[in-house]
């Protein structure tokens, strides 16, 4: 009889001390990849770092559930591996044997994810909470798509070029016509006297061409 009571006591105490175990229904697995993130500047994972993690998580729980005073002792960690993975569960400060619901823990972590990451100089990819997918950052969508701006610049230059090339000979022609009409007015006075100014006469090409042919 005594032995049975002893066994029951031992079992119950053992069970009470084991809220955290792998695949706990209210727990999460954490995976850190410190060397991948920091390379040569990687810090060693030790008890102090673990303390910081528990403190950060307590901070996250406090921020989410205003009023409940979570402490480092409320975050229970187990099953640590050299990979630096471990499981954790969160106990409620009001009832030390009861675990906080998984969903609540997830929301708390999502809210403070950035702060948790920066405490450890890690990112969403290198500090993973297995089961909590990071919220995807929406790609930046500026109001005017940048490609339209480049397009506008290029097309503006091309359009201006076309107009310049098309209009400039017309402008030159007009200028020449004005100059010609001025000179013609002068020439009418001189025409009676002079004979064979350079404007008169017809330039024939065949004469110069003839020279070319005769050389053959």
């Amino acid at each position: 009889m005594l032995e049975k009571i002893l066994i029951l006591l031992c079992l119950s105490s053992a069970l009470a001390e084991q809220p955290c175990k792998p695949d706990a229904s209210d727990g999460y697995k954490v995976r850190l990849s410190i060397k991948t993130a920091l390379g040569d500047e990687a810090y060693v994972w030790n008890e102090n770092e673990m303390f910081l993690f528990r403190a950060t998580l307590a901070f996250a729980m406090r921020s989410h559930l205003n009023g409940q005073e979570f402490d480092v002792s409320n975050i229970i960690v187990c099953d640590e591996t050299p990979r630096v993975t471990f499981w954790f569960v969160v106990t409620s400060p009001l009832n030390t044997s009861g675990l906080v619901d998984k969903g609540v823990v997830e929301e708390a972590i999502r809210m403070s994810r950035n702060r948790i990451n920066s405490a450890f100089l890690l990112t969403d990819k290198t500090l993973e909470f297995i089961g909590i997918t990071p919220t995807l950052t929406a790609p930046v969508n500026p109001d005017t798509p940048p490609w339209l701006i480049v397009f506008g610049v290029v097309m503006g230059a091309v359009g201006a070029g076309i107009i310049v090339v098309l209009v400039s000979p017309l402008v030159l022609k007009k200028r020449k016509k004005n100059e010609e009409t001025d000179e013609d007015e002068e020439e009418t006075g001189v025409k009676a006297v002079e004979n064979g100014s350079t404007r008169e006469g017809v330039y024939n090409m065949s004469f110069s061409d003839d020279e070319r042919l005769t050389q053959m």
Partner: protein
Amino acid sequence: MGKTGDSGVEERPKWDNKIQYLLTCIGFAVGLGNIWRFPYLCQIYGGGAFLIPYLIALVFEGLPLLYLELAIGQRLRMGSIGVWKSISPLLGGVGIASMIVSFLVSIFYNTIIAWVLWYFFHSFQNPLPWSQCPLNDNHTGYDVECEKSTSVNYFWYRQTLNITPDIETSGSLQWWLVICLASAWCVVYICFIKGIESMGKAVYVTATFPYLVLTIFLVRALTLPGATDGLVYLFTPDVSPILKNPQVWLDAATQIFFSLSVAFGGLIAFSSYNSERNNCERDAVLVGVINSATSLYASISIFSILGFKATNAYNSCREDNILDLTNHFELSDQNMTLENYYQWYDYLNSTFPDEVASLPLKSCNLQTFLDQSASGTGLAFIVFTEAVMEMPGSQVWAILFFIMLLSLGLSSMFGNIEGVLTPMHDLKIVPKWIPNEVLTAIICLASFLMSLIFTLGSGNYWVEVFNGYVGSVPLLIIAFFEIIGVIYVYGMKNFSEDIYFMTGSRPNIYWKACWMVISPIMLLAVLIAYVGLQAQKHPTYPTWNPDYELFPQTQVKDYPDWVFAIILLLCIVPVISIPVVALYELICCKIQRSSARAEPSPYCNDGFVVETQEQNNQRF
């Protein structure tokens, strides 16, 4: 000058200097195919060994045809229609066929330039838009189509083309492609506004810039890891395809032929603006050799970058495996690296084979990644953009790459447009009061409206149809008639005399043998083999269908019958003018033909004959 100029012979435009002419011809010959078709052919046909059939085709088919076109253009000093009419009125249809082919090719070619412009405009963003998948509607994950394929594929097929699942579904006009197409035609117009005066200045940039960019890329790529793997892979000769697969010879011959851009009429037009005493033999050899050398040089650059890309893919494949293994076996972080991956893998596989087998590990093989080949738009817009993403400073490389493609495409477009404009002038169907600028604008506008087909959802499929069928069989037929027309109708003797007049020496035995025997036989063989191969199976095309089970692989579908009919039309309509014009000339003009057949000869040049008549008219 002004008065007789109007009533006498119009001064033919001239090149400012020889360099302009050479750069224009080289720019026309060197096009997008040198970048994205030749390296692909080298890769699938055993690397360095492909050069053997390629060089044989160049020497016996490419150079003779090139020399022939440059010579007759320079001698007869007219566009393609005028030239063939002068040689024999029966052959006038050859010129018309060239003009139609040039027009059809320029329509779809400028669509490719529009796509390049689109990517160019998007290269100014940071990060590059094709490096990320967009989020889906409720922001919980990435877009499904993008997840299954890659972000680069998604950007090309969905955000650029917005492609439909097959050619029968036409979709609607994509407004962004329409404005890119409009800007492409505006760029072509501004370069062509003053005819060869403006174009000759534009080619200083468009013909030389690609070489600069290729050199920059080469220097950069050689400093990247994995470049030498790509080069070794490309150039390791494997002689077995040449000996076993006759397709190699066909592809080499067609590649040389289409790469040199003969039979478009553009080369004839360009050389018609030369002075008569120009050494066109040297020009032809120079252009042909530079074209092939550019292909080789481009493939070195391209393959260094592809080697870098394959190495990256191989490394990330192994790193994914490392992550899986590290997480599963709870090993310390970074204990397993790329260097000791294989030792770790063997150890783990021998101690825990069941667990290792249960993991979704990928098999990573560098050779598989190197074997992933692509040609055409797939190489430029998918493979290369992906490679550029992984290079540091990717915006700069993307911008440089797309400007290079733009220059290459533009310089080829000049030749195509010239092949349309110069015959129109020669045909004299355009009234004199329309200035050249307006005629060019009308042609650009008409081409733009016709090429709106390619901005539909199914536009890419139509580009492939045009690319495969307009730019192949009709050109072979035209070239065959060209060589037969000059050598046998005009006469080898007359042609030799013309060449003696122009260059000072008669063509040697190599040219004569090629022109009279080797090239026509090669052309005929290539034509028959090409048509035979095409006719053997019902033509198919790859489609991008997100609903396909094996997506992201492309689904191969048959062309529907009405598309097949259009393909046949595209092949036949250009070349039908050859027999039609010949018949017309035979029947209608039989009487006139025998009396007034003016064969051009060295003693009868246009300037002398026409000018004396005009002189008579003015003196009396």
